[in-house]
């Protein structure tokens, strides 16, 4: 147990988030749940400090802080940025969302504490290097998600969403633990690298490895909502309050991918130290995941085609995007993973942006039905303009960051000659154009029923613009962000 205080310094960002959680709980108690603005400011302060510490304490190598369980390396470090950014954005626009902070809601203060602990949980998820920690971190994030999903305690949709979520989550964690036990049985260890050593050494039967891996994949797959583990997503996304849905679509999904990459690329793969990756002779998992990716992509896109509720459509679109991300995952190449990381960051920005617009409109229109968006282009030009940028970015059209992200994915795919998946991915983007444009169509082409602005809060529109700008700018100049994503992978595959 090599626990040295000097290493502990790298754990500061997570520590600060935990402290923020406790601080939020205390402030909420002190203000007796009335002035939730204070709790929000505590949360924001905590997040900012944590962000600062992340920047200061950027690890350039992998540090095992508390034994082998958790590793803080550039890979996890990249995800910290994503989680902090997502938490910050969600916190701010939850403040102005009718569904959470409406006048007839109470215990808004505790919402922020859950947000803090969720961020903490996600950070740990990205650093888990052990089956146990994997289960525990997923469990923490899931429990917070169940609570936040059911946050609007008296709305039937929200409670129903949380019920489905909790049942599904419990089942998945059960199955995952069973799978973990099998892997433990095969290798006699729970640490990812130890599992790899165990698999290399042991004769281990293929079937057991397959079942074990698959069941663990069920647990992680549930978090990133890949087919066939995605069934909860549409109902929960639609039922949960919109800020929570926005958080789900960006935060836990990225954390799930972090876990997926770390688990598969540490325990089920051999690396020759120079970035080259070869499969363990035991199992050909890339093919399996390729099929999953194809099905997820197509399922998400085709289901989204016929949605008229924008939130539910964005739910299916997020499933489709998981399909695109998995494309990069199956290539066993450095380029593939870099593309995923970059895509996750860009996806977080544009998806949050889109949800933010949905929230803003929900506050005034009290509905997310597409027909209610009629003529929005003219009543709220800035908001509609930003939404159009997000939609184009989600489709992957050039001037936007979405295109660049997809471009890297396809570059990686073509580089490894995986033509059929590339073709399917490309065709799916075309299908996705149809339903994304159906929103633009209702905003611009169908005439508005009544005229005049919606009187949205200036802060909300400002935040939307703040998110829209990088979506466009990163579409034109994105080298620094890509460099960050590339460097963060050096250690995972190299190490």
């Amino acid at each position: 147990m090599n626990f040295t205080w000097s290493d502990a310094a790298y754990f500061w960002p997570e520590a600060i988030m935990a402290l923020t959680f406790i601080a939020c709980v205390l402030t909420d108690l002190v203000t007796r749940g009335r002035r939730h603005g204070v709790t929000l400011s505590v949360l924001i302060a905590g997040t900012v400090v944590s962000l600062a510490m992340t920047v200061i304490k950027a690890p350039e190598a992998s540090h095992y802080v508390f034994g082998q369980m958790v590793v803080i390396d550039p890979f996890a470090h990249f995800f910290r940025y994503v989680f902090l950014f997502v938490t910050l954005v969600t916190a701010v626009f939850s403040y102005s969302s009718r569904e959470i902070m409406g006048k007839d809601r109470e215990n808004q203060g505790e919402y922020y504490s859950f947000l803090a602990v969720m961020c903490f949980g996600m950070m740990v998820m990205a650093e888990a290097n052990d089956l146990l920690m994997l289960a525990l971190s997923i469990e923490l994030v899931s429990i917070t998600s169940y609570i936040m999903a059911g946050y609007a305690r008296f709305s039937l949709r929200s409670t129903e969403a949380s019920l489905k979520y909790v049942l599904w989550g419990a089942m998945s964690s059960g199955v995952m633990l069973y799978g973990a036990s099998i892997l433990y049985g095969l290798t006699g260890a729970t640490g990812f690298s130890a599992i790899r050593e165990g698999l290399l050494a042991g004769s281990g039967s293929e079937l057991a490895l397959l079942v074990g891996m698959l069941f663990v994949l069920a647990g992680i797959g549930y978090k990133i909502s890949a087919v066939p583990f995605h069934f909860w997503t549409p109902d929960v996304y639609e039922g949960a309050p919109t800020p929570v849905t926005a958080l789900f679509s960006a935060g836990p999904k990225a954390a799930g991918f972090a876990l997926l990459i770390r688990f598969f690329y540490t325990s089920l793969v051999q690396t020759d130290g120079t970035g080259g990756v070869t499969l363990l002779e035991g199992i050909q998992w890339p093919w399996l995941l390729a099929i999953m990716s194809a099905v997820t992509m197509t399922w998400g896109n085709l289901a989204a085609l016929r949605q008229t509720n924008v939130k539910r459509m964005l739910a299916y679109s997020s499933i489709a995007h998981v399909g695109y991300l998995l494309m990069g995952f199956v290539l066993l190449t450095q380029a593939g993973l870099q593309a995923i990381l970059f895509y996750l960051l860009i996806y977080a920005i544009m998806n949050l942006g889109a949800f933010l617009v949905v929230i803003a409109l929900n506050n005034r229109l009290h509905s997310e039905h597409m027909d209610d968006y009629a003529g929005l282009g003219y009543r709220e030009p800035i908001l509609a303009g930003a939404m159009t940028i997000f939609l184009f970015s989600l489709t992957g059209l050039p001037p936007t960051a979405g295109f660049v992200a997809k471009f890297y994915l396809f570059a990686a795919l073509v580089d490894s000659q995986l033509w059929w998946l590339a073709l399917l991915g490309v065709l799916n983007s075309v299908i996705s154009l149809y339903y994304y444009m159906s929103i633009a169509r209702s905003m611009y082409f169908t005439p508005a029923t009544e005229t005049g602005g919606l009187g949205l809060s200036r802060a909300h529109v400002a935040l939307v613009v703040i998110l829209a700008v990088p979506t466009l700018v990163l579409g034109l100049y994105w080298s620094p962000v890509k460099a960050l994503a590339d460097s963060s992978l050096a250690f995972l595959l190299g190490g």
Partner: protein
Amino acid sequence: MISGLIWFLFAGVSVGSAVVVATSKNVVHCGFGLLFTLLGVCAMYAFLGADFLMATQVIVYVGGILVLVLFAVMMTHRIESNRLRDELVQPVAALGAAALVFGLSMLMITRTAWDEKVPGEALPTTSSFGRAFLTDYLFPFEFASVLLLVAMMGAALITREKKEEEDQ
């Protein structure tokens, strides 16, 4: 070590009660079925020399979680309707799926050559548990505490009644 007969007795108890949990129409019977399954597993732990674990299982699982479940059952069924009955839904499909999963697991268990070693003397585990929790497993230990705290807060939040006095 211990004769197989006793082992099979306890195994039979846990499987039987598990079947009761799965199939019984009356929810309370399911609850008690779960109790005996847990006790059966507890016995298994004993056979496997996991004494601390056995204790935890009895105290935490049976004492805590099971009681919680039973409370929930009592609170959620309406007195006036005697409908404690709960038919099975899509039983055939469920049975098929369960059978498939079972077959798959058995195939796996029998096919794999687990490098089974003759188990040594079952030493008391509590002290090594203690040391592990504060050294190798320190982080999971602390993390679990946060997890439980959040669970409590969440449960309290969700089940709290509507606040009567609306001050602002």
